[in-house]
């Protein structure tokens, strides 16, 4: 067996292609890294992997046979964690699953199975938080607009939620960190990439961009938030545990509204 480092385009289909090639060419993989990242192994040979749809489909199909739909989802979620080195762990888990009898995905005593499930759980948590903490602001041209900066790449997995919830309003969610957005136009949701004006901010209602009244609703919401607090029960530790500080700048209820 040759021991190699695989370089791929950083997409999930790209990763699946890696799996296909590894099996087809009987490779011993020491690293799987997205383009633009440096390999750690000094003496391994590097192979570029070109994403190919038929390979992707083949691997997906066989994965679906070996894994429950939840198992496939866990793999995908852990991929979105973008944790360095997660690809190799995913690959390791896939090999373990292929090599063993059914339901190996639930063998939490296996290290990669456990790691993958942990990573997937983290991503799941962030997905959930984004679904909760996204705050839309209504723009002048009737678009509900939100920016996010999640630790993990959750945009692909929150789209469905917002699509079914806000079917009758146009919206755009933009991930500042990855410079990628999802735009829904009342028919379909599509990825977009764009330059945002600096002064559009992450809360507030700059009248150049936002509808009249937008800022009032943010004030009303903050007002509401403040009125719901029961002073004799304040527990800031718990509060921060639920609403980690790094999210505060996106939440109008936490905004100082200077």
């Amino acid at each position: 067996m040759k021991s190699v480092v695989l370089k791929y385009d950083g997409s999930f289909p790209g990763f699946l292609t890696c799996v296909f090639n590894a099996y087809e060419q009987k490779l011993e993989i020491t690293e799987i890294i997205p383009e633009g990242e440096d390999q750690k192994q000094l003496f391994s040979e590097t192979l570029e992997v070109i994403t190919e749809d038929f390979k992707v489909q083949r691997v997906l199909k066989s994965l679906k046979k070996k894994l429950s739909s939840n198992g496939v989802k866990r793999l995908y979620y852990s991929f979105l964690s973008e944790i360095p080195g997660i690809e190799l762990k995913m690959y390791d888990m896939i090999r373990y699953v292929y090599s063993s009898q059914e339901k190996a995905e639930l063998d939490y005593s296996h290290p990669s199975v456990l790691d993958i499930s942990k990573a997937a759980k983290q991503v799941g948590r962030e997905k959930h938080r984004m679904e909760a903490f996204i705050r839309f602001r209504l723009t002048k041209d009737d678009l509900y607009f939100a920016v996010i900066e999640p630790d993990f790449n959750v945009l692909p997995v929150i789209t469905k939620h917002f699509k079914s919830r806000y079917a009758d309003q146009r919206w755009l969610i933009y991930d500042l960190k990855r410079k990628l957005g999802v735009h829904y136009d009342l028919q379909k949701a599509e990825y977009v990439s764009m330059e945002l004006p600096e002064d559009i901010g992450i809360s507030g209602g700059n009248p150049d961009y936002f509808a009249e009244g937008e800022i009032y609703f943010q004030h009303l919401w903050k007002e509401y938030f403040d009125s719901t607090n029961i002073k004799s029960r304040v527990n800031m530790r718990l509060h921060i545990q639920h609403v980690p500080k790094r999210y505060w700048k996106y939440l109008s209820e936490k905004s100082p509204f200077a």
Partner: protein
Amino acid sequence: MDFDRIKEKLNILADAAKYDVSCSSSGSKRTNTKKGLGDSSGMGICHSYTQDGRCVSLLKILLTNHCIFDCAYCVTRKSNDIKRAAFKVQEVVDLTISFYRRNYIEGLFLSSGIFKSPDHTMERLIRVAKKLREEENFNGYIHLKSIPGASDELMREAGLYADRLSVNIEIPTKSGLKLLAPEKKHEDFMKPMEKVKNEIIQYKSESKLIKSTPKYAPAGQSTQMIVGATGESDRDIMYSSAFFYKNYNMKRVYYSGYVPISNDPRLPALGTQVPMMRENRLYQTDWLMRFYGYDVRELLNNDFQHLEMDIDPKLSYALRNRHLFPVDINKVDRQLLLRVPGIGLKSVNKILQARKFRKLNWEHLQKIGISMNRAKYFITCDAREKELKDVSSENLKQLIIQNSFSKYRKEFNQQLSLF
């Protein structure tokens, strides 16, 4: 919209509604059809948390805080000298929609002080819900608080638009209610509950026959009890609770530690601490009943009327039932596994899965994430025995408490532990 006026009303009417702790928005299946607004098919989402750590998922307000009654435990009571306000039906609808579209909330929780009469008030609440559903095509969550004493007819209508209905029992014992709300009758609370339960059953059986039967309160009904206002025991509270779960198919019972709001001699004085730990222990007990398969009488009974405050009810149960333990992690059935302190629901499932592959040892269990600190005294596994067979329950309790403290103590005392 007159924002300043709305803001003032919101301020008053959210403030008065905040003592109602039922705020969850889960359990309804109302999917967005025909491209309307909103969807409540998933689990409810907490969009924020108050500074006291409670989830904010609904716009929770009173329609008005005018009230003809004078219940001693309530801020809205007639004799309380506070600012009064009332929302117009349309104002509540507009607020709900604007908040929902911005992803601030999952829906509306609407309650009210009683103005004119219970029916008059109930009818107004229903109008809000009906408008939201029919004019705004709104599929988000709506929870209406039923007004004690409202007629059957209105209760029936309310359930057609609301996802959840609740009647707050407020005081867990009849005698307590008599003392604090002499104008109200115990039956006024039970009757609407009975009606809702029967309607739910009826709609369920009809919808089996006819596909197009509308949904009736799909998320069921809930109630709330104030804890610590009268001298009731934990046993009294949880027995009431078990009664509601069993006889009224209650989805949730909420426990609300009494927040002193007046200097009424019948009530704990102003400044008395809110019994938060007790409230927490009651929720844990409730949880054990609903998800861990405990019977309420195992957790509380004549010999054991009050929950222990220094340990959780599950540990407390295990210490009172040492004869059941230790159990062999690799053999014991699910039911008993669920009763091991330090092992939660999720870990139980993981253990049951993982042990099909190999015998589990301490290391496996640790990785699965069970709290060894507690669990180790109650289990055996594929390794040598850990320790302590014949320690008394009281000593074991102290040991566990000490261990869970020392975890924190270490962080503060790092320098000392060098020596």
